[in-house]
């Protein structure tokens, strides 16, 4: 049985060379160029993808072979039947980007962020660590999205898009 991992719902074989990062597998082997190579050293977040639809990771620091049998979702896997994910639409509506290079990572990261909020994972700015629910605030979003840089500076639009899309879902 060939060793595979699932990318956006399709099983693909693991690379023969264990040096291939998940990022390079997506971009160079599978031509999924939505995921971006920014710094390639874990500093910018442009390569963020989701594991099992909800856990955000950096594909540049991940060796693809480590993810055998896992389900990976990239930006290409978010739209359903030609309809944009609500967050994709919200980024458009709120001008959550200028050049767009960081956007796929921002969107995947914010999906993972909402899951972490739902689960009650505290952040650096969470006051009460014993609280089981975390208030959805601008400050929490800023802190939790700090791993995704936007050098155009579209942060206000990004925060507006995330707030609009997910505030109700969390509460």
């Amino acid at each position, binding site marked *: 049985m060939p060793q595979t991992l699932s990318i956006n719902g399709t099983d693909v074989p693991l690379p023969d060379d264990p*040096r291939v990062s998940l990022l390079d597998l997506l971009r160079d082997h599978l031509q999924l160029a939505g995921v971006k190579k920014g710094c390639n050293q*874990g500093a910018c977040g442009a390569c963020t993808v989701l594991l099992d639809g909800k856990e955000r990771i950096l594909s540049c*620091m*991940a*060796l693809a072979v*480590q993810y055998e049998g896992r389900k990976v979702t990239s930006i290409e896997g978010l739209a359903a039947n030609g309809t944009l994910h609500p967050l994709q639409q919200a980024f458009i509506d709120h001008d959550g980007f200028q050049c767009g290079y960081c956007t796929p990572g921002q969107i995947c990261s914010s999906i993972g962020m909402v899951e972490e909020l739902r689960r*009650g994972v*505290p952040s650096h700015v969470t006051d009460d660590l014993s609280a089981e629910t975390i208030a959805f605030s601008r400050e929490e979003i800023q*802190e939790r999205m700090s*791993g995704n840089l936007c050098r155009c500076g579209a942060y206000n639009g990004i925060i507006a898009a995330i707030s609009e899309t997910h505030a109700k879902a969390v509460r």
Partner: protein
Amino acid sequence: MNPFTYARAADVDDAVQLAAGSQAKYLGGGTNLVDLLRETLERPTALVDVTGLPSAIEERSDGSLLIGAAATNTAVAEHHSVRTRFPMLTRAISAGASAQIRNMATVGGNILQRTRCNYFYDHAGSRCNKRSPGQGCDAIEGANRNHAILGGSPSCVATHPSDMCVALVALGAVVHLQSTRGTRTLPLTDLHRLPETSPDQETFLKPGELITAVEIPALPFASDSTYRKVRDRASYAFALISVAAAIDVKDDIIQDVRLAFGGVAPKPWRAWNAEAALKGKPATLENFCVAAEAELSDASPLRDNGFKVALTNRTMVAVLDALVREKNGGSNP
């Protein structure tokens, strides 16, 4: 990256067997090691993936926590017992890296991450005794704002970058190790080496030894502990300095205290001298200052990092004062 083989360990016995007798490295989340491989600062011939090894966080009957070394940083930070009984650990982890990295990084890997000294990384242009023993150190007379003020040597002044480890040493964490020769435990304070004349030797681990778990002994007064990190930007930056602290005060007298510093030394720095200076003394600002000076009187600041001495002093005093005020409902007599 140089070529290497890859194998996923089924269990701890399998992992130490796979790593025996070769230039193997254990691979956790990869958030530091993959970067080092890419820069060819690490050149193993084999990687043994240990992310499938035990990651549970177990509450034991003696009040200790046993954390499997493959637990992710996020899993530790969000664990209810860590948040409520050892909040300095949740605070430290939450202050480090980014959410994506915390989701990937393991406890074992966090402990064994390597310095982010720019001269260590700059293999094309800089001398570094840690990377190339005997070559010299360009940090000592270079841009050393981020470097060590304690525990450095004429060979190396690089800092250990972890936040998590600072809380763990303050809590007296004990590391569980296994190799093909058996198991042993080691206090985390005794795991990292100071550079002295061999900065390439960073730990007292034996060849092939694997961190399998980290044990945090019961420490009731740690339920009010905290971690304060000072950095150049509000999030996603390494510490300039940091302080992990817990203090037990009864009738205004300090019964016990735990203090550790990050960003100031080649290892997570347990402030033993400061602790000794505080025990049995009244919990006053003056005594906090005296204790900070007891710890920092040996500091050897470099050209660009003298500010760390005063900053560590002030931060330690402020954190202790805040902890005491919080317990007293806002006042510190």
